[in-house]
């Protein structure tokens, strides 16, 4: 019989069936590693195929290169590559692919009034639900990297979503499009290990390990971000809920205090 051919008795098969849900759980725990994107600037040749791959996969209109040649993200350009030189040592210069950093604890998702932004804790993608976004642009203010951009045609916020419709089965379009393996997507711990090794080798810096409490895009930079002219995020979770409670509470306390003052004024104020 076939079962026996596979060395699997019927009894074992039933046992296995019973154990299936449990094994799923075990599998998740064993495999519950999160994914991340790795950007290795030491390999990037500045061909900008990631930009065009992103455009093609997401059906976005072509990018008009500004006269300054400094590319910036906009409502329909999720990722850009710019050549940056270190402010300390002019010899250090690299192409730096830049897009949403996909924070592990995204501040943008925390401030969106209609929960249009969500974080997938496994694949790492921070995604704006385009059918829900009301276009208030509060996420612009919350983002430590100032990434979100407004699409004035669709009247919504748009940004890199790490090709949430491809990952983790397929790699994000930019990663798939990179001809020199400067971009990679895989288990975060592996990516981080790779990044640390490389950074040690080139005496560089690993961006995304601690910035904004850790991000799911890890970038190997030749020098610290402030030197490379990038926006520097604090090395802690931005906009933690408890901090918001503290600030709101101070406002409510002041409001209660004001009400008390009004009461006192109307009771004891003479009005002359």
């Amino acid at each position, binding site marked *: 019989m076939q079962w026996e051919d596979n060395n699997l008795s019927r009894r074992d098969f039933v046992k296995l069936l019973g154990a299936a849900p449990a094994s799923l759980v075990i599998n998740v725990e064993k495999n519950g590693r999160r994914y991340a994107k790795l950007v290795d600037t030491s390999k990037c040749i500045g061909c900008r195929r990631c930009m065009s791959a992103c455009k093609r996969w997401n059906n976005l209109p072509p990018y008009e290169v500004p006269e300054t040649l400094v590319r910036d993200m906009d409502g329909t350009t999720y990722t850009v590559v710019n050549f940056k030189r270190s402010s300390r040592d002019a010899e250090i210069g690299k192409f730096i692919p830049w897009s949403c950093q996909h924070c592990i604890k995204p*501040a943008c998702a925390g401030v969106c*009034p209609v929960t249009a932004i969500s974080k997938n804790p496994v694949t790492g993608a921070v995604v704006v639900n385009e059918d829900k976004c*009301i276009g208030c642009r*509060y996420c612009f203010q919350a983002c430590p990297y100032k990434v979100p951009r407004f699409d004035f045609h669709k009247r919504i916020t748009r940004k890199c979503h790490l090709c949430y419709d491809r990952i983790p089965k397929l790699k994000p379009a930019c990663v798939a499009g990179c001809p020199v393996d400067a971009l990679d997507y895989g288990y975060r711990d592996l990516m981080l290990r790779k990044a640390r090794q490389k950074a040690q080798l080139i005496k560089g810096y690993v961006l995304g390990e601690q910035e904004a409490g850790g991000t799911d895009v890890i970038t190997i930079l030749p020098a610290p971000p402030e030197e490379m002219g990038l926006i520097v995020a604090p090395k802690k979770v931005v*906009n933690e809920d408890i901090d918001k409670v503290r*600030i*709101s509470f101070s406002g409510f306390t002041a409001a209660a205090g004001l009400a008390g003052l009004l009461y006192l*004024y*109307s009771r004891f104020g003479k009005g*002359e």
Partner: protein
Amino acid sequence: MEDALNKNNRLAYYYIWISILLSVILIGLYGVLMSFVEGMEILEFNLLIPWSMMISVYIFFVVSSTGLCIVTSLGHVFGAKRYELIGKRGVFLAIITIVFGMIAIMLHLGHPERSAVYVWITPNIRSAIWGMGFFYSFYILFIMIEYWLLARADLAKTANTSIGWKQVFYGLSTFGMRSESEEAVSRDHKFAKIAGVAALISGLSAHSTLGAVFGHAEARAYWYGAYYPIYFLLSATFSGLAWLILMTVATYKIKSEEMPEKLKKLVFEMAKILAFLLSVGLLFMSYKMGFGLLDDAKAKTIMLFINGPLSVSFWGFEVGIGTLLPIIMLLISVKRVSLNGILAASFLVIVGLFMMRYDFVVAAQVYPVFKEVPSLFPALMEIFVIAGIFAGFFFVYTLAEKFLPLKETEH
């Protein structure tokens, strides 16, 4: 004869005023239309500064609304009898300020129609904007009820004593409750107090959350912290006082009516409080600027005010015209019992506040995005739309002054 001439003159001025307002509203509507035809970006002077004029005008109006609610609550919520005089005008102004504030924010939002739905279906209680929308929804409802209760007896009176369309209009506006009896009025008063308490609670909550919208933004060093939720309450109170003084005194002046003695006394009392609160505001401002300079994260932004592109607006409008000059003018005019003086001073306060809101919103967004400070002057279409919003505000007030009971009466 002279009276008739005067009356004719006044009527002519009235129509000139109305036509000016209507033409400015048309300019504003043109801006709104163009923003639909050519894209929303024409309402943004710099695409990397996501919040600009619309947000600052929104804040300007809603802060005034809460302030008006706070000042009027002294009367029928806290029971300081003399403040009941200004109840109707104050609450009505609170309604139109918040309505025009909401119009400004609607023009900022990409999809205002979605916000009305998703705020309720998929709320995010961690978001200060959500809290603000939630509380302000109730606030608008409560102040409208409050005004209706305060005005119902007057509306009923007009309905009962007039004929034709007037009777129909005022009759409908009372929702059929046309009793003028003392009993009905005291019942109105009781419910107005309840509505007033509800409006004050929701208004203060909404307002603290409005401050928190900015206070929560850790990535914007200038806004971040507990300062703004608190300061907004203070500035709400003085903007409410300034609006009330301005609109009350201006209305009496323009209609050349004699102000009742009690009202005059109250206006001068409010002027004194205004002067006091402005000086407290000055303390807050110096604290913010002084300590901000010591903080590396904020210092650059604060230098925009002190020595940068916003310095004229800061020293000239916020500090000079908006605070110091009015304090001096108020103190002198209170001493000399000059209504003109406090009228001018309260107008200056409003102008200063307007500039303050704009500077506050825009300045915080310059760093760290820009390496060099860009021009912070609003775009032409922004100015058109804002002018339209202000004209709309004064237009509604002018009509209301003619058709609705706003006049100071004692209960």
